[in-house]
C-alpha cells in the first residue's frame, strides 16, 4: 500500500495550500514494472522499474501550471518544492478565456479489487520457464519472440477542494509470443491478459497456436486482390476499430470542434448498425476497473452507442470548461470500453459456414485515420490471418490492407459473437496505465474494402 510517510507529506502540503486559498491537485503514481523480452528463442531483455511520479497542478483563477517530478520523494521539502514550481508556473501563465473547472475528489475511494500479490511479485524465472516450455512443445525449428509485461501501479489523488482521498492499486499483465517460420516468413501470435498471475497458462497458448501451425505449414499464402469482402474481424482487430471509432467520434472535444466523424450528427441519431452497442463500464471485470478519473471524479457506467444510436459524448475537464459542459469522468488513460456481445456461435468458422469465401483478420497492424471527418481508417492484416471457404480454413493470407469507414464496417455487421473477450490495449510508453476492453470474440462484416495487398506475409 501507499507509503504512509509519503501520504502524510502529501496531505500536509495539501492542507497548507488549502489554508492559503490555493487551488491545486496532487497526484502520486507509483509503479513496479517488470518486462521480459524474447528474441531469437532467448531472453533478450529482463528489466525492472520501480518509479514514483508526482504531478502537481495549480489553478490561479484562469491561469494554470503544472509540474511533474520523477525522483526520490523522501521529505516534505521535495514535495513543497514541486508545489512551489507549479504555483510559480500558474502565476506566470497567461489567463484562459474561460473558467477552468476545479478538480475535486468527490468521494473517498480506496480500491484494490484487481490487485494480486502473486503477480505483483512474480519471479521472472517463471516467465523464462513458460517461454522455454512453449518453444520446446511447439518446436525449436521456429523463431520465437515476444514480451511479457507485468506489474503493479498505485495512484493517489488529493485536491484542495476537500480532504477526500482516492487511491487505486492494481496489477496487470500482457503476455505475447510470436512464432515465425524462418524460411516461409509467416508469423503467428498469441496474447494473454489479466490482473492475476493465475490468468496465464502455457496450455492456452499451445492450444491456440497448434491448430494454426498446421494450416500455415500445409498451405501457401493467398494474395487478396483489392475489392470488397466479407470479413471476420477477431477480438484484437475489433477492439482497435471500436477504440478508434469512439476516440475519433465520441470525444467531446472532437465533436465540439467539428473534427470528428460524428460532427454532423447529434445525440439520438443513428450512426452505426442497430446491432452495435458500446458503453464505458468501469465495473466490468474484463477491463481494468478505475472508479475515479485523474481529476478525482467518480466514474460510472456511461452509454456511448445503444442499438446504433449516438448516446453521449465523453468530456474531459478542460473541454467541458471551454464549451460549458459537465465533465463526464473521462480525464483517464484507462477507460473501460465494452461492446455488447450478440448471438453468434462461439466458433467464428461455424458462423460463416454458409457465407462462401470469407477473410478472417484477427488483428490489424498500425491502424491510422487518413480522414477523421469521414471516419476512415486504414491498417493491414498480419498475424494469424486466413482465408475461409464454407466455414473451413483454406490458407493463410498475405499482408492485406483494409481502408474503410467505421460507419461501413460497423454498419454492416451480420454476426456478432456471443462470447466476450478481454483485449489488453495497454502500452508502456509513459507511466504504467493498464487499459483493457471487452469486445465480442469476433464480428462478421460484409462489404469491407481491401485496398492493397503484398505477396508476402
Amino acid at each position, binding site marked *: 500500500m501507499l507509503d504512509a510517510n509519503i501520504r502524510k507529506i502529501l496531505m500536509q502540503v495539501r492542507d497548507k495550500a488549502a489554508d492559503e486559498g490555493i487551488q491545486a491537485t496532487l497526484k502520486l503514481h507509483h509503479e513496479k514494472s517488470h518486462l521480459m523480452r524474447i528474441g531469437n528463442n532467448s531472453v533478450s531483455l529482463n528489466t525492472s522499474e520501480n518509479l514514483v511520479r508526482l504531478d502537481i497542478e495549480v489553478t490561479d483563477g484562469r491561469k494554470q501550471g503544472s509540474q511533474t517530478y520523477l525522483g526520490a520523494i523522501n521529505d516534505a521539502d521535495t514535495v513543497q518544492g514541486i508545489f512551489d514550481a507549479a504555483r510559480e508556473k500558474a502565476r506566470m501563465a497567461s489567463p484562459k478565456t474561460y473558467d477552468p473547472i476545479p478538480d475535486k475528489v468527490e468521494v473517498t475511494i480506496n480500491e484494490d479489487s484487481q490487485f494480486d500479490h502473486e503477480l505483483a511479485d512474480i519471479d521472472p524465472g517463471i516467465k523464462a520457464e513458460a517461454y522455454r516450455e512453449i518453444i520446446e512443445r511447439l518446436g525449436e525449428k521456429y523463431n520465437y519472440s515476444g*514480451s511479457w509485461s507485468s506489474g503493479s501501479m498505485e495512484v493517489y489523488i488529493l485536491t484542495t477542494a476537500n480532504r477526500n482521498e482516492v487511491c487505486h492499486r492494481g496489477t496487470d499483465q500482457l503476455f505475447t509470443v510470436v512464432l515465425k517460420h524462418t524460411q516461409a516468413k509467416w508469423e503467428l501470435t498469441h496474447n494473454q491478459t489479466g490482473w492475476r498471475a493465475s490468468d496465464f497458462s502455457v496450455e492456452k497458448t499451445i492450444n491456440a497456436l497448434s491448430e494454426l501451425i498446421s494450416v500455415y505449414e500445409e498451405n501457401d499464402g493467398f494474395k487478396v486482390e483489392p475489392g470488397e469482402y466479407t470479413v471476420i474481424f477477431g477480438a484484437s482487430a475489433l477492439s482497435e476499430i471500436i477504440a478508434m471509432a469512439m476516440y475519433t467520434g465520441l470525444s467531446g472535444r472532437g465533436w465540439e470542434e467539428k473534427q470528428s466523424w460524428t460532427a454532423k450528427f447529434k445525440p439520438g441519431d443513428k450512426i452505426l448498425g442497430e446491432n452495435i452497442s458500446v458503453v464505458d463500464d468501469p465495473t466490468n471485470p474484463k477491463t481494468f476497473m478505475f472508479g475515479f478519473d485523474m481529476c478525482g471524479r467518480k466514474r460510472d457506467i456511461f452509454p456511448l452507442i445503444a442499438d446504433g444510436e449516438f448516446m453521449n459524448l465523453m468530456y474531459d475537464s478542460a473541454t467541458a470548461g471551454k464549451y460549458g459542459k459537465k465533465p463526464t469522468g473521462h480525464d483517464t488513460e484507462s477507460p473501460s470500453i465494452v461492446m455488447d456481445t450478440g448471438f453468434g456461435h462461439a466458433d467464428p468458422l461455424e458462423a460463416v459456414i454458409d457465407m462462401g469465401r470469407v477473410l478472417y483478420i484477427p488483428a490489424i497492424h498500425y491502424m491510422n485515420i487518413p480522414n477523421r471527418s469521414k471516419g476512415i481508417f486504414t491498417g493491414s492484416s498480419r498475424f494469424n490471418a486466413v482465408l475461409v471457404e464454407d466455414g473451413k480454413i483454406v490458407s493463410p493470407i498475405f499482408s492485406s490492407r483494409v481502408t474503410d469507414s467505421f460507419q461501413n464496417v460497423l454498419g454492416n455487421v451480420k454476426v456478432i459473437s456471443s462470447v466476450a473477450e478481454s483485449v489488453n490495449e495497454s502500452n508502456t510508453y509513459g507511466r504504467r496505465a493498464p487499459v483493457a476492453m471487452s469486445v465480442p470474440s469476433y464480428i462478421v462484416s460484409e462489404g469491407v474494402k481491401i485496398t492493397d495487398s503484398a505477396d508476402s506475409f
Partner: protein
Amino acid sequence: MTESMEVKKKISSNISRIASEGAGYVDARYYLDDSSETLLLYDGDLEANDTTVESGIGVRVLWEGAWGFAATSDPSCLDACFEKAAMNARTASRLVKVPLSMGAGEAVKGSYATPVEVDPFSVSLQDKLTFLTRLDNDLKEDFILKRMVYVNFQRKKVHFQNSEGSEINKDLVNVFGMIMAMALDSDGEMQRRSMSLYSTGDGTAGWEMVTNPELFSGHAARVRSELAELIKAEPLEYGKRSVILLPGQGHLQVHETIGHPLELDRILGYELSYAGGSFVDLDSFGKLRYGSDKLSVSSYGSIANSPGSFGFDDDGTPERAYRLIDRGILVNALTSRAMVNEANEKAGREVFQQSGGAARATSFYKAPIDRMTNINILPGNDGTEDDIIASTEDGIVVDNPVSWSIGSNREHFHFGCEIAWEVKNGEKTRVLRNPTYQGHTLEFYGSLSAVGDESTWKVELVNNCGKGEPNQVMQIGHGVPVVKFDDVITGERK
C-alpha cells in the same frame, strides 16, 4: 564531495564489483537532469503549461549472453539497483539459444554538448508566452476556426560509465515547435494546415530556433493562405500519377520506409512482437537495389543542430557519419555493438565492420535499442522545387502527414497528407484536399525520378518515434530534399 560526484563514484565501484563477479559487460547511465517543458496555445488559451523533471540511474548487465536491466530514481538505492540488474541478467541467462556479446571494446572518454545560443530553460515563461502569443495572433483570420501553437523543450544531462573504463558526459538540448490552423471546407469538414520547426543542418539548437522566422516563426501567413485555398479545393481523385514530396512529408516517408526497416535489431527479429520486422535481411547488404540510382541515404550526416546528433550512443560508441544506401544499393544499417556481433556471427561473414553508434535509450529507466539518428536523403542534381515541377507532366505535390500506416515488415505503406497541389504539364494548377498515396517500398523508391538540390534540403525534426518494449519515444532528425516518384497510386478507389 557533491551528491552527483558521490553517485558517480558509487557507480564506478558497483560496475567493478558486478564485472568481477563474472558479468560480460556492465554499464550505467546517470541522468542528473532530464527536463521537458511543453507549452500549448489552443485558440490562444494556454492549455499546456507543463514541466517534467526526472532524474535517476539505469543499469545494464550482460550475463552469459543475456541482458538484465534495472532502474531507480533514488540514488540511495543504487547498490540495490545494480544487484537487481545483475539478478535479472542471471535469470535471463537461463534461456539463451543465441548469446549476445558486446565484443571487445576500448575505453572511450569524452563529452558532447548540443550547440546552443540561448538555453530554452533560461528564457522566462513570460518572454516565451509573449512570443508565442504574437505567433498565435499571426494565425488569426475570420475563416479560421482553430489555432494551435506548440513548443517543447528538452534538456538531458547524462553521465555514462561502463566496465571497459569508458566515461562520457552529455549535455543535450532539443527544441520542437509547431503551428496549425483549421477551418471547415465546402462540405463542412475540418481541414488543417500546419508547419513544424525545422533546421538547416547548421548552427545552434536553442530558443533561437523558435524566434528564427525562416525556421519557424515566419510561416503563419503562408499557413493561413494555404488553408484558405484548401477549404475551397476539390478532393483528389483516385489514379496513378507522379508524387512530389516536400520535406514536410518526405521526412516521414524516409523515417517509416528507410529508417525503421534498416534498424538491425528489427532485421534480426527482436521487434516482432511489437513494432514488426523488416523485409531486409542480412543477405541484402551490398546487393539489394533499394531504389533508383538517384537514392543515396546517410546516417548522422554531420548535422550540428538536430535531436539525431548526440555525440556518443548509449553503448559508448562515438557518432559516425556513414552511408546506408549508396546510389540505390543498400550498404549498411542502423546498428549497435551487440547487434553487429550477432549479425556477423549469424551471416558467417563480416556484414558490418563496426557499430553505427545507434544504441539509444529514451530515459534512464529504459534500456538502449537500435534507433535512428539523422537519416537523410542526400541532395541531388535535379534543381529546385520549381525545376522538378516544371519537369512533371501529371502529378501532385504533397506536404505534411495526416496519417501513416505501414506494413509490419515495412514492405508497403499508406500515407494521408494535409494538402496537395495538382501539377499538369509542368505547372502547379490548383490545390486538392484529402490527398493520400500508397505503395510498395522497393517499387516506390525504384520510381524515384528526381531529387532536388541543396536549396530544397531541410532537416525535419521528429519528436515522437515509438519503438521497443517497454515502449520508448525517441527524437530524430531527417535531412531531406524535394523528391519525385512516378506512377504512384494516389487517392482512394471509389
